């Protein structure tokens, strides 16, 4: 199973960037994730982009306030700050101001289960062999479905069918996560 090593590798990379003060690289790593989350929750591209911008600003401010979140993976920090900012947005509060200093980020928030534990590697590892191969090529290596079909010696249609179950599982994860 790839999950543990892969997860730890990325968390270690984030921790290294944070320790080195390379906040711009960290923010660049997570920008699309933040944007996707905000657009999904606000159900509006413009609102989502605006809130995402404020999440980035808040993360930057947290960094410069000296917060390093000992032992908590940075992806959880990103997730939590995004969640708080979205809550402010839906409550009609300003989102372009820093977070209160007394907010504490904890890794054991039940709502963080998806980002904390379920990496795509794990999801893919649970699939039957044929589906796992197609998913690995497309979702983990970045091949197009056509390229994956060539690599696997099958048709595009067949690859589409194999990817179907991975997408279904992703949808289920989101249903579980609310």
């Amino acid at each position, binding site marked *: 199973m790839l999950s543990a090593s892969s997860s730890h590798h990325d968390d270690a990379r984030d921790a290294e960037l944070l320790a080195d003060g390379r906040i711009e690289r960290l923010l660049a790593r997570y920008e699309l*994730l933040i944007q996707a989350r905000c657009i*999904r929750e606000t159900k509006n591209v413009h609102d989502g982009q605006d809130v995402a*911008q404020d999440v980035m600003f808040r993360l930057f401010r947290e960094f410069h306030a000296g917060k390093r979140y000992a032992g908590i993976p940075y*992806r959880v920090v990103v997730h939590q700050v995004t969640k708080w900012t979205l809550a402010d947005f839906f409550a009609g509060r300003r989102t372009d101001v820093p977070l209160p200093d007394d907010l504490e980020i904890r890794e054991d928030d039940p709502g963080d289960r998806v980002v904390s534990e379920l990496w795509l590697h794990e999801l893919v590892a649970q699939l039957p062999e044929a589906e796992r191969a197609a998913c690995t090529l497309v979702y983990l290596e970045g091949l197009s479905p056509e390229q994956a079909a060539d690599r696997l010696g099958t048709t595009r249609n067949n690859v589409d069918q194999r990817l179907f179950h991975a997408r279904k599982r992703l949808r289920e994860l989101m249903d579980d996560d609310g």
Partner: protein
Amino acid sequence: MADVDRLFDELAAAYVRGERPDLPAYLARAGDEADELARLVDAFLRTVPPPEPSEDDVAVMRARLEGEPGLLALRKRRGRRVDDVVDELAARLEVDDRTRLKHYYQRLEGGVLDPHRIDERVWEALHTVYETSVRNLIRPLVTRQGGSAMAYYRRTGPIGDDGAGPAHAAAPAEPMLVTGGEPVPAERDALDRLFLGGD
């Protein structure tokens, strides 16, 4: 297979390859299924480790934190002249009035046009010109008062609860975002509508 699934596969593969997929463009292509695509993409991005950003991405992010519009930073980093970019845009958008196009492009690049009003064709053309999505790069990361995030930390005090910097801080010298501040012509032609929106 539903279109949303094809769009998702395309975006996911591009992301894993380290590209910068233009999420709003994908959502526009999904039409009525945009919410479903957003949900799927969100799930995917939360479960796959983020790829290492390119050096361009990092440099542009640094510039945005400094209060510089990202598109301007990207063009400078690529060593492109404004006139060259405008020439390419004019060809791709089939615009004859190059002078006005340059005026609009420079305002867009300078972060003084509302990015929400920009026509999709402009984003697509810019994507082709720069070989990456630039939609998210338009705005510097600024406070409500228009100061860059980084500028406040070069001074002595922290950002206050209202997002403002220290009272004694000098006004930021960076370009300021003026959302929707562009004077709107009474009669808009096709070129105006590309950059200002409207019917």
